[in-house]
C-alpha cells in the first residue's frame, strides 16, 4: 500500500467526527446493530448466502432444471457434466454454452456401465429455458427454469444422476425447501417453549426456577441422537409425509428448547435488576406489561442471534435422522433423504457425486453459524 493512502493523524475531532458522533447518539438500537453488523464482512457474506438459500427454497421449482421425481431409466449414474462456454467451429471459436454428450460402454466381463464423453454430440445449455411445466405454490403454471437444456428433452444433468436416473442438482434444490424449513419450524417451536419456560424461570426465580433448571440439566445430559432415533422410529409408517415432517420437528424442538431457555433466563436475570425495570415496577406497571413492553425489546436482538445459531443444529439433526431412514422418508426430498442414497462405500465408489447434498448441508450450516456469530457480536452495540 502506498503512503498517500494513509490519512494523517488527527488530534482534534474534526467536524465530520462530531457529526458522526451525534449520529451514533441519536440512532436507535436497530440502527446501531446494523452498523456494527455491517462491519463484520464474513457475517455479511454468510447472511447473503443464507438469504440465497431461502430464496432457492421458496422458488425451488424455478431454480431446478427438473422436478424432484423426474427419472430416466436410460440415464442412471451419469457423472456430473461440465459446461463448456466456447465451441470451436470452422469459422473459429464462438460463445455457445453446451455440454458434451456421452456414449455408454459396457465392460464385457463385469457388465459395468461406464459413460465416455463424446465430443461430437453437443447439447446446448441456457439460462431461463423452457422445460417441464410446474405450478409455483399451486397458484400459477409456467415452464420457465433458471438453467437447463436449451432444447427440452436433451439429457443435461449438471451434477449427474442417481441410481434411478434422477437429476442430483434438481433434487438437492428441492431438498433445500424441506431441510431449511425444518430448521425454521423446529426453532420456532423451541423458541416458543424456550421463551415461555426461560422467561418464567428467570423472572420468578425460587422453586419454579430450580425445577425448570433441573429439567433443563436432565435434558441436556441425555444423548440426543439415540433418543431421537427411538422416538422417531415410533412414528407410524402409514402417516402422510406432512404429518411425519411435523412430528420430526416437534421431536427436534422438544430437546432443542433448552439452549434458548437458558439464554432467555440469563437475560431476564440481568435485566430484572436494571433501573428502568425497577422504575416501571415502582410506577405500578403490571407484570405482563413489564415483561412485554420493557424487558422483551432489550432481549430481542440476543434472541434473534441465538435462534440463528440454533437452526444449524436442527438442520444437522434432521439430516442425520433422514440419512438413517428414520426421519423424513421418500417421496419427501430433503438433504438427509438424498444422502441416504450414499449410505455405504460401494455406492459412493460408483457415484461420488451423490454426496453433493452434503455440500449443501455444510454450506447452509457454515453460513448460519457465521451469520449467528456476527449477529451475536452486533447484538450488543454498546460494547466495543
Amino acid at each position, binding site marked *: 500500500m502506498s503512503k498517500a493512502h494513509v490519512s494523517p493523524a488527527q488530534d482534534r475531532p474534526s467536524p465530520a467526527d462530531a457529526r458522526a458522533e451525534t449520529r451514533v447518539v441519536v440512532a436507535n438500537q436497530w440502527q446501531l446493530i446494523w452498523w456494527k453488523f455491517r462491519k463484520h464482512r464474513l457475517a455479511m457474506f454468510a447472511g447473503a448466502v443464507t438469504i440465497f438459500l431461502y430464496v432457492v427454497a421458496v422458488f425451488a421449482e424455478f431454480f431446478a432444471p427438473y422436478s424432484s421425481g423426474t427419472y430416466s431409466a436410460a440415464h442412471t449414474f451419469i457423472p456430473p457434466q461440465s459446461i463448456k462456454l466456447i465451441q470451436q467451429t470452422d469459422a473459429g471459436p464462438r460463445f455457445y454454452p453446451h455440454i458434451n454428450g456421452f456414449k455408454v460402454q459396457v465392460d464385457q466381463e463385469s457388465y459395468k456401465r461406464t459413460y465416455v464423453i463424446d465430443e461430437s454430440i453437443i447439447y446446448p445449455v441456457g439460462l431461463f429455458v423452457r422445460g417441464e411445466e410446474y405450478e409455483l405454490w399451486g397458484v400459477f403454471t409456467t415452464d420457465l427454469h433458471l438453467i437447463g437444456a436449451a432444447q427440452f428433452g436433451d439429457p443435461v444433468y449438471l451434477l449427474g444422476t442417481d441410481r434411478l436416473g434422477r437429476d442430483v442438482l434438481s433434487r438437492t434444490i428441492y431438498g433445500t425447501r424441506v431441510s431449511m424449513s425444518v430448521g425454521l419450524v423446529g426453532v420456532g417451536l423451541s423458541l416458543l417453549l424456550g421463551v415461555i419456560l426461560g422467561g418464567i424461570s428467570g423472572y420468578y426465580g425460587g422453586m419454579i426456577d430450580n425445577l425448570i433448571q433441573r429439567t433443563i440439566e436432565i435434558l441436556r445430559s441425555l444423548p440426543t441422537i439415540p433418543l431421537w432415533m427411538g422416538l422417531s422410529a*415410533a412414528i407410524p409408517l402409514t402417516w402422510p409425509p406432512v404429518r411425519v415432517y411435523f412430528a420430526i420437528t416437534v421431536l427436534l424442538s422438544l430437546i432443542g428448547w433448552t439452549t434458548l431457555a437458558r439464554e432467555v433466563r440469563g437475560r431476564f436475570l440481568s435485566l430484572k435488576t436494571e433501573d428502568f425495570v425497577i422504575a416501571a415496577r415502582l410506577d405500578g406497571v403490571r407484570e405482563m406489561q413489564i415483561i412485554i413492553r420493557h424487558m422483551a425489546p432489550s432481549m430481542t436482538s440476543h434472541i434473534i442471534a441465538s435462534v440463528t445459531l440454533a437452526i444449524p443444529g436442527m438442520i444437522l439433526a434432521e439430516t442425520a435422522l433422514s440419512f438413517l431412514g428414520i426421519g423424513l422418508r421418500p417421496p419427501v426430498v430433503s438433504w438427509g433423504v438424498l444422502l441416504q442414497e450414499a449410505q455405504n462405500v460401494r455406492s459412493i465408489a460408483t457415484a461420488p457425486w451423490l454426496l453433493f447434498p452434503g455440500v449443501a448441508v455444510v454450506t447452509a450450516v457454515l453460513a448460519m453459524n457465521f451469520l449467528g456469530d456476527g449477529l451475536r457480536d452486533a447484538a450488543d452495540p454498546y460494547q466495543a
Partner: protein
Amino acid sequence: MIWYIARRILYLIPTLIVVSIIAFLVIQLPPGDFLASLISKAEETIDQAQVDALRERYGLDEPIYVQYWKWVSGIVLRGDFGDSFEWNRPVSDLIWERLGLTMVISLFTLAFIWVVAIPIGIYSAVNQYTIGDYLVTVVGFIGLAIPNFLLALVLMYIAFRYFGQSVGGLFSPEYIDADWTLERALDMLSHIWLPVIILGTSGTAALIRVMRANLLDELSKLYVDAARARGLSELRLLFKYPVRVALNPLVSAVAWVFPALVSGSAITSIVLNLQTTGPLLYRSLQAQDMYLAGSLILLVSILTIIGTLVSDILLAWIDPRIQLQ
C-alpha cells in the same frame, strides 16, 4: 467436597427416574405390545402356556405403571432387562460388550479432543489475528459444520479410492467374535483411530474456540502485564497462570461434549459398522425389538449422565469456588 459430591449424586436420582421413564416410553410407543410382535414374527406357533407365562412376566394385562415397575425393578434388583425377541436371548447378554466399546471409543475421543484442542487453542490465542489463527478459525468452523456421518463417508471414500482399502469396523475379521486377548486389544487400537478422528472433529473445533476465548480473556488481565513487567519469560508467563485458569471452563465443557460424543457415535458407528451400541440400537428399532432398544437408550443415557457427573466432580476438585455456588 464430600457434601458437594453427595448433593450431585442426590440430583442423580430424579434424573435417572426421568431417563428410565423416557426409555420405557420408547418401549411402549410402537403400536401393539411386545407379545403381539413376538407372535407375529415367530416361525412356529408358540403354545398358549408360553404366551401366558410371558404375559405374566411383563405384566402386560396390568396397568402401565405396574408394567413400568416390573421393568425397572427387574433391572435394578436382578439386572434383568427383558428379552430380545429378534435375537431370542436376554438383552443383558447382548449389550455389555457393545456398551464397553462405546465407552472406550468415547473416552479415546475425549482424550484426542483435549490433546489436540488445548495446544491449538493456546497457539490461536497467543497469535491472535495472524494467518495461523485465521486458518485455525476457518478449519474449526468447517469442522463444526460437517456432520459426523458425512465426514465418515468422505474419509471412507478417500481410503477406498486412493489407498484401495475398505476401512470400517473396529476389529479385523478374525478378531470380531474372538475373546478378549492382548492381540485383540492391539487389533482394536489399530482400527480405532478413524472413528476417533471422525467423532472428535466437531468437539475439537468447539473446544479450540472455548480455549481461545478463555485464554484471550485471561491474557488481557493486569496480572499478566504485571508479571511481564517483572521480566518473566513469555513461556512461563503463559503457563504459570493464564493457561491454568483458562482450562477450567474446558473441564466443565466435558459435561456437554461427552453426551454429544456418545450421541454422535451412534450414527458414525452405523456408517463405519462399529461394534458399539449405535448399530444395535438402529437394528433393534427397525425390527421393533423394543426391550433391546429401550434398554440401550437407558444405558447410553446413564453412561452420559455418569460422564457428566464425573466432569462436575472433576471441576469442583480443580476449582474449589464451584462448590460454594
